[in-house]
Each structure stands twice: as C-alpha cells, then as structure tokens.
C-alpha cells in the first residue's frame, strides 16, 4: 500500500516535470505533438495523485496504523468524516491535498481550453505544472505522506493512533481547510494566464476575460474558507472571538485582500484599459501570498498558536518564492511596453478615482497586516531582539481602513466614470446621507457614544440605502415598461446585468458583516467561580447554575454544566456548556454553549474546575450582533454566485483602444 502510494507520487513528479518541459519545448520548437503529450501528462499527474490520495484516505479510514501519518492523525474511535478529514489534518497530507487540488484545477483548465488560446496555453500549463512540481518535490522527498513506523529493523504497527486534534473534530473544521485550499490553489490559474499572456506578448484583456470566472470562484472559496475559520474559532476555541490576528489567520487574509483588490481593479482594465501593470502585479501578489501563507503555516518562522510542526520545509518555500517573484518581476518589467494605459485619471470625483483608492487602501491594509505578522522576524533581523505586535496594532490600522472602504463601497458604484459633478453627487447621495445621519442621531439618543461604532453604523446605513435605491430605481423603470410587480422586476433587473446587481448583493453582505463586526464594541464579559444554586448576573441575563452531568464514550469523557437562563423574568431554557477530555490525545477541550439570536449571542464557556475542586469556573459573554457576520456571508455567497451567472443581454463595453501614439502629448479622444 505505502509502496504504491509513494510510487504514484514519484511518478506524478516525473510526469509534472515532463509537462513543464514538454509544453515549453513544444511551443518553442513548434511541435504540436509535444504540446499535446504535455497536456496528457497533466491528466496523468491528476490520475496518479488521485490514486495516492485515495490510498491515504483508505489507510486512514481502514486504520492502517503502520503508517506514521495514520498513527499520528487518526484513531479507531473517531467518526468516519473525521477520519476522512485527517487527510488534511497534518503537514504531509495537507500538502498532498494542495498538490491534488492543483492537478485537478490544471486538468479542468487544460480540458476546457483544449482548442482555445493555443498561443498561450503551453505557458499556462508550464506555470501551473512548475508549481505542481514544487509541491511534488515536497511530498516526494521532504515530507512524504506514506512513511512507515519503524522500530529496529521491522515495521511496527502502532495498534491505535493519536487521533485528530480534538479541536479539529468539529464540522466546520472538516470543510474549512479544503475551502481555503480551493481558494489558495485556484489563484494559480489567473496567475498562470497572466504570465502566459506576458510571455506571448498579448497583454490585452483576454487573460482577464478568461480568468474572471476562475477568479470569482476562487475568491468565493477563499471567503468561505476564511469565514469558516472565523466561525470555528468562535464556536470552538472558547475565547469568544472570531479573529485574533494570529499569523496563521493573517496568512489566509493576505491573499484574500489582494484578490479583492484585483477583482475591483480588473474592472478598470475591462472598461477603461487602465491599470494593466497594476493588475499583473496584483494577480502575482495574490498567488505569491497564497504560497507565502502556506509557507508561514508550515515553517515555524513566526510563533503561532496554530502553526504546523517546525520543519525544514521553510527553505524550499523561500527558494521557490524568491525565484518565482524574481522571474515575474523581470517579465513584467520586460513587457511594460505592452501594458500601457489607454486612458488617464481625469478627476478626483470619478469612478476611476474610487477604484484607485479602493486598491490603495486594500493594499495598505495588506501591507500593514504583513508587516505586523512579520514584525518579530524583521526586528530580530535588524537588532536581534524579537518584538511582536498584538491585536490592538492590527485593529488600530484596519478599523479606519475598513470604514474608509465602506464609504467607497457606497460611493464607488454610483459615481460616474471620468468625471462627476458635485450636483450629481448631491442628487445620488442625499437620501443615503440623511439616513446615515438619522441613524447616528438615533443611536446617540439611545446612549451610544463609541466613536468608531457610530461611524460604522452610519456608513453601513449609507451603503445599504444606496444599494436598495439602486434596486428600486432599476426595478421601477422595468415595471414601467413591462408592468410586472416590483419583485419580478428586480429579478429581471438582476438577470439583465448579473455582474452589477450581484456585486451590489455582495456589497450588501459586506454591510451586514460590518454590522456584526461593530457589535464587538459592545461586548460584555464576566468570569466567575460558581457553585450549584448560585445566580450570576450578566447584562440583562440571569444565569442560574445547576448540576454538573458527567459521562463518557469511547472517544472522550465529558462534564456538562447546566445553566438556567432567564432574561427580564422570561425563562429562556437551559444552556449546557461542556468540557471534554479526549483519551487518545489526553487533551481537554471546551464545547461552548451559545444562544444565537439576531440582536445578540449569549455565550457560555465551562472553563474547568478550580483547583480546590469545589467551584467551577464559568466564563460568560454577551456578543451583540455577531450573527450578522454569518448572515452577511450568505449575502456575499449569493451575490458572487449571481455574478457568475451570465447576463441575459451580453454587455459590450465600448472603449477606445490606442492604435498609434503620435507626438509626445497626444491625447486619447473618447
């Protein structure tokens, strides 16, 4: 079994190398059969890796404890879904998942474009397969998934395994890593197209048109992955937060930020032919940040609570990153002539300008997060002292950035291209601004004094109102012509221009998320040592401490604390926070009890027995508005899916193309 798996990975490595060499040689030497054979090699890589992955999963489920990976990440008593999830529970397996996903993407891509982009495709294949080769080097020679446990000269069967880390035995953790990887890996595709178009000197927009859907889909996966991680942290880790600015979390956020910037700035290229170099830079940044994120979580470079084991992987990643970035930079600089902008900025009050600032601010945020994450590494390199920065640093920088972005979210889509007059702005934004101000006045009267919270609610209202007005305006126009009811008209409207109205829905989702984030300003928390019969007051809630129940199954033992909850005299039932002790890993975990409501969550964590054995430590929190983050996510998801549906009427963006440039100051006429 292990021999077959190792062999499959080694063969996949050979085929991937061949695909790189074959496609480039075939292109340069004009030999179509070489290119074709390289494409077939791509399918072979996929088939071989599928065999390897299936073998690993089979060993995990069947419980072949001779394998080190199985013994470390699975055990007999785990449920089958978790055994399956052990595939990506550890270093080697998750690298195999990376490689497998990349080969899957590449195969789909090669198949889709088997008759298209014949000029560019060999290079696209080569770029993707180079990345694949890199990951296959890692799993063939550095971190092999099919290692056998050895003692002396014989193979040892461990009998039973360590089990998956108990913290990971939670449903969101089963799908979070694959989602994140689907996003991480997917960005290799737009990147490969960008490089392909650079090499073949066709830096027009064709690579953007072809990869738009890829980009959106991978962005969707990334968003899902990041938010699943946040949801997991909130529901499992017991500290009540969803985001702690931990290096590993930051690693997943960084490419997401540049990807978001990219999604916006491609519109500038599509519609105005501007920012071509910038888009190349952004797509490359995103790809390399994905690799960098994988590197950060695996190399132990930065102290993190949830990094993988320290290993020698780091330097392989550094070499790959260094070579990749250098090559990309060289290519972009070399092809600058083909990336000339076709228009220029004309006014600060214009759509172009809002895109520019959107990008600027997203990149600033990305840079700040990167800087903060690597701060210990940087300071150690400079003066030998490791200095780290904490969550307050990240919040301080990113909260104003977030609010500014929110403002742009409202303004950007409505402001005119090229130049907008103050009058038209007044017309478009009068009611949204009034609504925003009204919300602030209302909140101040209710006693809210938190500055950022007020600004945030005002901006959220502002954006929400602009979006709603847009939908109604469009729908009323359609209803006038066709006499449908208003909701049918809205559907029709969305269908006519899915990109625009899907985008609005995504923005609406983001508004909901921001409302959820803002709730953080009003958290209440209380940690107390409790005994049976005691009543704890938390905000408007009364918590009556009841019995502790205990029990065990074959995987873990548990203690459950019964807490009767009442609010303003109404009985809200019992919450049952739980503590578990997993036998295989001897690790305790808390299963928090959360009463989720739209206005606030009541969150109880059974933190353990106090040392004298009599009391029980209970942590209780009220988190206002948190649920809106998860609701907002659905908005983003649905909006993105709508963006992916082709519009009813194909949109053509007329725009001027630069044919020749005569004279030094020749102006582009529109």
């Amino acid at each position, binding site marked *: 079994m292990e021999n077959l798996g190792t062999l499959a990975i080694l063969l996949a490595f050979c085929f991937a190398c061949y695909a790189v060499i074959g496609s480039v040689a075939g292109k340069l030497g004009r030999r179509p059969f070489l290119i074709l054979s390289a494409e077939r090699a791509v399918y072979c890589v996929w088939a071989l890796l599928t065999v390897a992955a299936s073998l690993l999963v089979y060993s995990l489920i069947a419980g072949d404890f001779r394998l080190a990976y199985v013994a470390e990440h699975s055990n007999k008593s785990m449920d089958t879904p978790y055994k399956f999830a052990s595939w990506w529970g550890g270093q080697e397996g998750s690298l195999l998942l990376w490689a497998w996903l990349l080969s899957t993407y590449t195969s789909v891509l090669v198949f889709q474009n088997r008759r298209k982009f014949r000029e560019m495709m060999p290079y696209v294949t080569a770029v993707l397969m180079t990345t694949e080769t890199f990951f296959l080097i890692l799993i063939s020679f550095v971190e092999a998934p099919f290692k056998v446990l050895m003692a002396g000269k014989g193979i040892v069967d*461990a009998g039973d395994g*360590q089990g998956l880390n108990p913290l990971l035995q939670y449903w969101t953790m089963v799908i979070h890593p694959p989602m994140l990887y689907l996003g991480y890996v997917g960005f290799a595709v737009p990147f490969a197209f960008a490089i392909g178009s650079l090499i073949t000197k066709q830096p027009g927009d064709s690579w953007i048109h072809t990869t738009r859907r890829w980009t959106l889909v991978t962005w969707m996966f990334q968003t899902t992955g990041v938010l699943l991680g946040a949801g997991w942290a909130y529901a499992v880790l017991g500290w009540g937060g969803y985001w702690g600015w931990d290096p590993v979390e930051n690693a997943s956020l960084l490419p997401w930020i540049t990807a978001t910037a990219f999604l916006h700035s491609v519109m500038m290229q599509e519609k105005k032919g501007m920012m071509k170099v910038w888009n190349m830079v952004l797509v490359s940044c995103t790809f390399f940040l994905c690799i960098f994120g994988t590197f950060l979580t695996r190399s132990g470079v930065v102290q993190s609570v949830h990094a993988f084991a320290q290993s020698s992987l780091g330097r392989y990643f550094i070499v790959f990153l260094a070579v990749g970035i250098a090559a990309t930079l060289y290519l972009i600089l070399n092809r600058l002539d083909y990336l000339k902008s076709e228009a220029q*900025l004309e006014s*600060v009050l214009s759509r172009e300008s809002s895109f520019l600032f959107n990008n600027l601010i997203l990149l600033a945020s990305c840079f700040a997060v990167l800087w903060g994450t690597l701060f210990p590494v940087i300071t150690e390199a400079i003066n030998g002292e490791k200095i780290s920065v904490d969550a307050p640093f990240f919040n301080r920088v990113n909260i104003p950035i977030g609010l500014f972005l929110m403002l742009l979210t409202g303004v950007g889509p409505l402001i005119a291209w090229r130049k907008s007059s103050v009058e038209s702005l007044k017309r478009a934004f009068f009611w949204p601004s009034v609504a925003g101000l009204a919300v602030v006045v209302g909140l101040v009267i209710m006693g809210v004094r938190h500055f950022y919270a007020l600004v945030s609610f005002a901006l959220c209202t502002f954006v929400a109102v602009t979006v709603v007005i847009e939908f109604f305006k469009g729908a009323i126009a359609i209803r006038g012509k066709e006499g449908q009811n208003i909701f049918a008209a809205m559907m029709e409207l969305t269908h006519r221009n899915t990109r625009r109205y899907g985008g609005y829905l995504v923005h609406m989702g983001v508004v909901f998320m921001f409302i959820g984030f803002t709730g953080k300003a009003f958290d209440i928390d209380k940690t107390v040592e409790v005994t049976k019969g005691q009543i704890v007051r938390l905000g408007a809630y009364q918590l009556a401490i009841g019995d502790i129940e205990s029990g065990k199954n074959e995987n873990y033992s548990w203690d459950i604390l019964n807490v009767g909850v009442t609010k303003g005299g109404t009985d809200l039932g019992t919450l049952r926070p739980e503590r578990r002790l997993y036998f295989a890993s001897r690790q305790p975990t808390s299963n928090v009890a959360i009463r989720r409501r739209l206005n606030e969550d009541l969150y109880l964590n059974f933190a353990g027995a106090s040392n004298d054995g009599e009391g029980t430590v209970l*942590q209780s929190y009220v988190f206002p508005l948190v649920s809106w983050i998860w609701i907002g996510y659905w908005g983003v998801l649905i909006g993105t899916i709508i963006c992916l549906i082709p519009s009813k009427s194909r949109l053509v963006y007329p725009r001027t193309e630069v044919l020749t440039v005569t004279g030094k100051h020749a102006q582009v006429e529109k």
Partner: protein
Amino acid sequence: MICKRLRCEEYTSVEGIGPMKNYLKFGLLIAAVLGTLAWLAVGGISETKTYYKTVAELKQLGSQAQEKRLRVGGDIAPNSIKREGANVSFTLAQDKLRMEVVYNGIDPLPDTFRDGAQALADGKLGTDGVFHATKIQAKCASKYEAKPTVKGNPSVRS
C-alpha cells in the same frame, strides 16, 4: 452649473495644466491617506510592541525589565497551577530557573494550558519579581501535530 462644467473641460483640454493639477490632487490625497495610516501604525506598534524573552534573559535584565511589555516563554512547572476565582498562578520554568506568574486576564486559558506544556506569557514584571500576565498562550509541542507513541524507541522511515 453648465458653465462650471464647461470651464473644467476647457481646463483639462489645455495641454499640461489639467493633468498636472489632477496628479497633484491625487498625490496629495494619497499622501494624506497613507500618512494617516502610517501614523496609526507607528502609534499601534509603540503601544503594543512586546519583547520576546526567555526566563534566563529576563533574570539578566533585572530591574530594567519592569518597564517593557514582555512575552516570556518557558515550560509550566508540574503541579504549580493554582486557580483562585478568576486568578491563575503558576511557575514558568526553564532548566533550573523559575519564575512566578500570575494571570488575571479576561480571556479563558487555552485548553492546552496544563502541567508540562510550553507557555508564552504576555505582561509585565512586577517589583515583587512576580510576572503579571495579561495573556497566556500554550502549546503542547505543536498544536496540530501530536507525537506518535510507539514503544521501543521508534524511528521513522519512508
């Protein structure tokens, strides 16, 4: 209003002046945005920067150590964890050196916080020599990867 707009268009069409003025405007705006963020970032760094130290390094620093925010790493000495209400005290050990730590932060202690685990304590050193931590991180060797326990001194081979 129409007049105003016309004038603007005249401006941009006059070679050189319009774009220059625009670039200046954009430049100033970008500088303002980045400047604000840089100012926030610098403030944020000086406010929250934390020095990594080991127990040994901390002992060497002596009284100097009392001003800085510190992050001290070590192992939790067996049987030293004591909980009194929300306060938790324990001893952080590195080889033979020991340091008393008191934690009374808001966040619950991680589940990995137990005897023998590696811990990182963030906080300040008090004048009494006790380290007052506001945040504790703990990890058992590595959080995602537990070591295999196979009898007979196992080695791993591919």
